[in-house]
């Protein structure tokens, strides 16, 4: 069972190499192969997740070398949650892209790049070695640059170069931090570094934390570092946007920031204040920018920035409620963001535009798509039965309890702003009657993944129900709260 931990990543890599070797010319076979590889990996990750949530974390050493020689890989409840989410969303998105990508040329290469991006994300999630995280971050990022520029239009290329340069700055900062970590403590393993960091001076800690946090905040697009995200995510093909906005910023940014704040720099509580500040800025800025957008994809992207801000705020507040809020918000957010991007992709597939001025009366022409789109929007806006409502509520309660009343008020205000811009969008785009409604629905292959995601958005709140919560989210929160994994990573030898 433990061997499966590397398999999710290896399946993606093997799939990508095989597609580029055998089915470079054949779009249909490449698509089918990609779907089956992703499905295989999704099944594996669900199995792994069940194992982790029932029997506890898995520790694995690449090459069979015991520490400190081998690279430590680790799947604890926190990373298992992210892993399952990544691969399930990836499966739905891949099915969707089998039809959506038909208008692009060279789609086999799209699958190659897409699978490698997923492999990189899986690699980040299972790794406990900071240099390994850097390598797989680069794998995922480099693949995502290409995917952003895949359509080869002028704007897409422009977005790609901005994204590349900003991303390179981020990864260089991370690399410098890794060099300094290695130079001072002689280790690359996160858990061992946490042990060694007790002997470091505050100057050193601040320097490392600053570099790492700046790097990963660039990846997560928290507000002072957000400039690349609106271009890159709005210009990518819809399936890529769905994965980038739904999962990639959360895996490459949020997940690693959780690791950095909660598991590495535990004796530097001031980091949390910094995160609170960045989070509040992102929330407000993203919300306000989204209000004025005419391009619907851009609106969704600014909403991503705003919602990442919620996660950062929850992380900044900390404590049981804050951490629970972060994870719940992440789950609900990932499903609804992926749904929204797939939805707007379907609209673009049928109507050929994403400008809100050119789209009218979608409610009449594309009723099913509209239904799913509304579900996603209401989900993000935080209307009661959906998961986002509960997560926002938890974050607000946590803020009040921790004494950050101002932040709590800000969270409520931004929630209202979010509802506001989605209602505005609803009014102009979906409910505005056209003179002669002609029904032209998106193909079924596009609708089915959206339907599943819409269902997920509805039921994601179920994770909070007592009885289910104890077995899923609470275990992940425990990893963020007290570092139980240290016992198995450090304890047994050396």
């Amino acid at each position, binding site marked *: 069972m433990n061997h499966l931990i590397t398999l999710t990543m*290896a399946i993606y890599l093997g799939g990508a190499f095989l597609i580029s*070797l055998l089915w470079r*010319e054949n779009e249909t076979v490449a698509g089918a192969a990609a779907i089956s590889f992703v499905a295989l990996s999704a099944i594996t990750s669900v199995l792994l997740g069940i194992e982790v949530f029932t029997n506890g974390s898995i520790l*694995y050493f*690449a090459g069979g070398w015991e520490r400190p020689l081998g690279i430590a890989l680790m799947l604890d409840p926190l990373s298992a949650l992210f892993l399952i989410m990544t691969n399930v969303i990836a499966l739905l998105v891949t099915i969707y892209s089998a039809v959506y990508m038909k208008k692009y040329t060279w789609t086999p290469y799209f699958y190659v790049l897409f699978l490698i991006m997923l492999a990189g994300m899986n690699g980040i999630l299972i790794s406990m070695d900071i240099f390994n995280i850097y390598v797989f971050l680069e794998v995922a990022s480099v693949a995502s640059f290409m995917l952003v520029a895949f359509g080869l239009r002028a704007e897409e290329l422009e977005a790609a170069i901005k994204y590349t340069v900003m991303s390179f700055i981020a990864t260089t900062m991370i690399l410098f931090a890794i060099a300094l970590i290695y130079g001072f403590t002689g280790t690359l393993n996160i858990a061992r570094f946490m042990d060694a960091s007790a002997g470091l001076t505050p100057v050193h800690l601040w320097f490392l934390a600053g570099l790492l946090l700046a790097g990963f905040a660039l990846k997560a697009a928290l507000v002072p570092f957000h400039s690349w995200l609106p271009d890159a995510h709005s210009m990518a093909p819809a399936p890529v946007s769905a994965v980038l906005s739904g999962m990639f910023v959360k895996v490459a940014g949020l997940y690693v920031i959780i690791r950095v704040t909660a598991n590495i720099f535990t004796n530097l509580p001031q980091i949390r204040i910094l995160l609170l500040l960045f989070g509040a800025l992102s929330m407000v800025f993203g919300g306000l920018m989204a209000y004025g957008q005419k391009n619907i994809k851009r609106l969704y992207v600014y909403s991503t920035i705003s919602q990442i801000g919620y996660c950062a705020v929850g992380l900044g507040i900390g404590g049981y409620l804050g951490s629970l809020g972060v994870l719940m918000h992440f789950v609900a957010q990932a499903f609804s963001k992926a749904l929204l991007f797939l939805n707007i992709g379907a609209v673009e597939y049928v109507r050929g535009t994403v400008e809100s001025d050119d789209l009218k009366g979608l409610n009449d022409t594309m009723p099913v798509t509209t239904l799913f789109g509304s579900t996603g929007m209401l989900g993000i806006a935080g209307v009661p039965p959906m998961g986002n409502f509960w997560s926002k509520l938890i974050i607000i309660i946590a803020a009040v309890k921790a004494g950050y009343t101002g932040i709590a008020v800000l969270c409520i205000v931004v929630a209202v702003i979010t509802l506001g811009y989605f209602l505005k969008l609803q009014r102009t785009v979906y409910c505005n009657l056209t003179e002669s409604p002609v029904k032209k629905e998106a193909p079924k292959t596009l609708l089915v993944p959206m339907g599943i995601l819409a269902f997920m958005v509805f039921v994601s709140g179920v994770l909070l129900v007592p009885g289910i919560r104890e077995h899923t989210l609470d275990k992940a929160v425990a990893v963020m709260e007290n570092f139980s994994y240290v016992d198995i990573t450090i304890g047994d030898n050396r």
Partner: protein
Amino acid sequence: MKKKGMSEIVQSVAKMVFPFIVLYGISLILYGHITPGGGFAGGVILTGGFVLLVLAFGTDYAFRILPVNVAKALDSIGALGFLAVALLGFTGGAFFYNFLPKGHIFHLWSSGTIIISNIMIGLKVVAALFIAIAVISKARLIRTKDGFQYKQSGERKR
């Protein structure tokens, strides 16, 4: 770069030097676990040899020695081979386990899977960088009245 390549002196020197570069690259790859070198070093040196050919004779000549489809296949095969070495490690109990006998130190056939990995990485690096350089140096921009027109010189399919 240019259609006909460089002058005759450069071309004949390139022709003489190329086999030695290839030989040196291969020896670096094979002896990577004993002496300085290894898959990456050998791979980039082999790429240097091909770069010399591309510069001296143009991309078409280089493509005759290593056709682009073969290079693409080699790229994937190298990557797959390295992944296969990693996955075959499961027979010994772990991902990337060195499952072959380690042999004697300072002998060529020693240290288990390292030599296979070296060959695979070398293949991968040379094929990948060759494709990158060839494709980039084949790219042409032709000036038209409203901007530029992109074209690959010597039009080949994929």
